[in-house]
């Protein structure tokens, strides 16, 4: 038998398919991957340390910069941890506004993930179609918060501002149109044979492996594990909404992708129900919170279901107006933990498919 020699290939950090400044050193044997070494840290900004030199409310805009594709969910996770630390009760209307903006953020994130995955697989039209809806949703978020991506909308005890006049009607109109748009994605991307050939039976992840590696979000649910914090823990007011948790069957790249597409439909359902329910609720949008926040000594951990998975904030207070320590459980970072084993034995073209199906955002990976 011929002796072969292994060689290394650098995939990234500037490769567009790595979805950011992420580097994977691939050890190849011919055309097959023998080993993959993910190297992150190119976007590291020391967010957790930055939190220690800022007051509690001042850290909210920094959380946006972690997962900038679903900024509201990041805000939400952090403020929930601080609220738990201080024992603040959030007004009902604020909870609804958080759900609406959070689900809208999840939609923008999933729409981008769908479009970019289509682009990774060679379908440019799908990318353009997805961006069309993403822009519409971002226009609405801009009208609500003043920013398009880095929303900084959640506040400790509530949200920054109430909805502008006529905003809910615009949102309702878009949400009524949204299932039609998702049907288009299904027709153009999901149903495409070339797309299916490149994603089915590629990067198969067994349910027990996904649990052992503590993966979360659509990556976990794509393997068929029914674990969604919105159902399991039912934080905020999620118990008031009727929605399903989409699950995959085979745990391959296609299932992870298709889980996101079906999750978009569920998010639309949640927003539609929230719009109907919020009309009957009037009241303050922020609780009475002291101007200078000084939580009592102690620690709090809160987690929410972000678009990428479970995002958790662990905040330690020493009684001063600045947190003693903040740690963030970032789903993108943890979901990457299984990348090496997932890539072994596949071709380079499959690296693009597998990495895209995990849906990482490097702001969150590097933190």
């Amino acid at each position: 038998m011929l002796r072969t020699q292994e060689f290394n290939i650098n995939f990234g950090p500037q490769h567009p398919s790595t979805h950011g400044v992420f580097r994977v050193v691939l050890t190849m044997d011919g055309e097959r991957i023998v080993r993959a070494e993910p190297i992150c840290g190119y976007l590291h900004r020391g967010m957790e340390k930055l939190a220690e030199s800022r007051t509690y409310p001042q850290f909210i805009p920094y959380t946006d910069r972690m997962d900038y594709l679903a900024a509201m969910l990041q805000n939400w996770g952090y403020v929930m941890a601080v609220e738990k630390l201080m024992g603040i009760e959030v007004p009902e209307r604020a909870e609804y506004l958080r759900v609406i903006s959070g689900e809208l953020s999840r939609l923008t994130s999933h729409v981008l993930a769908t479009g970019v995955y289509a682009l990774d697989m060679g379908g440019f039209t799908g990318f353009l179609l997805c961006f069309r809806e993403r822009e519409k949703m971002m226009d609405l978020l801009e009208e609500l918060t003043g920013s398009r991506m880095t929303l900084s909308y959640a506040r400790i005890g509530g949200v920054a501002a109430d909805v502008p006049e006529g905003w809910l009607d615009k949102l309702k109109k878009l949400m009524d149109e949204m299932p039609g748009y998702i049907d288009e994605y299904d027709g153009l991307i999901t149903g495409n044979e070339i797309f299916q050939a490149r994603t089915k039976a590629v990067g198969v992840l067994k349910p027990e492996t996904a649990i052992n590696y503590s993966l979360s979000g659509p990556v976990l649910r794509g393997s068929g594990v029914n674990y969604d914090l919105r159902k399991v823990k039912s934080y905020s007011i999620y118990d008031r909404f009727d929605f399903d948790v989409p699950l995959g069957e085979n745990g391959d790249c296609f299932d992870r992708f298709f889980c996101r597409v079906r999750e978009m439909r569920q998010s639309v359902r949640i927003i539609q129900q929230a719009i109907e329910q919020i009309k009957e609720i009037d009241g303050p949008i922020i609780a009475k919170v002291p101007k200078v926040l000084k939580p009592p000594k102690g620690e709090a951990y809160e987690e929410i279901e972000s678009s990428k998975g479970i995002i958790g904030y662990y905040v330690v207070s020493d009684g001063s107006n600045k947190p003693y320590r903040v740690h963030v459980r970032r789903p993108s970072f943890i979901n990457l933990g299984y990348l090496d084993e997932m890539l072994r034995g596949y071709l380079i073209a499959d690296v693009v498919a597998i990495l895209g199906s995990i849906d990482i955002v490097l702001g969150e990976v590097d933190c």
Partner: protein
Amino acid sequence: MFGKGLVKGLQITWKEFWAPKLTVQYPEVQHTIPERFHGKFVLDVDKCIACGLCANACPNRVIDLKKQKVGKKQFLTDYVMNIQYCMYCGMCVESCNKDALHFSKDFNMNQYFYRDIPLVLVRREAPAEPVEEEAPAAKAAPKPKPKPKAKAEKSAAPAAAEVAAGKAPGKEGQ
């Protein structure tokens, strides 16, 4: 049937080809900017009491605020925002009790030189004496009151010297 997905995809693409276009011909045509847009900062100097709440609320210490005591009140002399470090989070605008700081809809803030990036919202000299105290002093002119007069003269002298030395430029707002 193999190829069904391709035919359906082409149908959608064909339909979209004839759909109305969403792109706008910028800069001739522009989108409407929402009311809450985080654009260039605007400071209403008359409302500002130079309390410094905005500077304290800023996560990146972007706001450089200088004030001088004139009589009993604080007088804002310098308000410079180093917007190269600004996150446009709106914490400063939210913290203002007097509703003096606002976002405008202006988003064209590009500058050719780095030195022009800081946004100078106020740069002025403090008055020599408080405006409110001038009127009672004029009324009391017939009655000789040596102590307040001497104080006023003292405070006027260094301010005049500062202007003559050119330390305080008379630029107000931009």
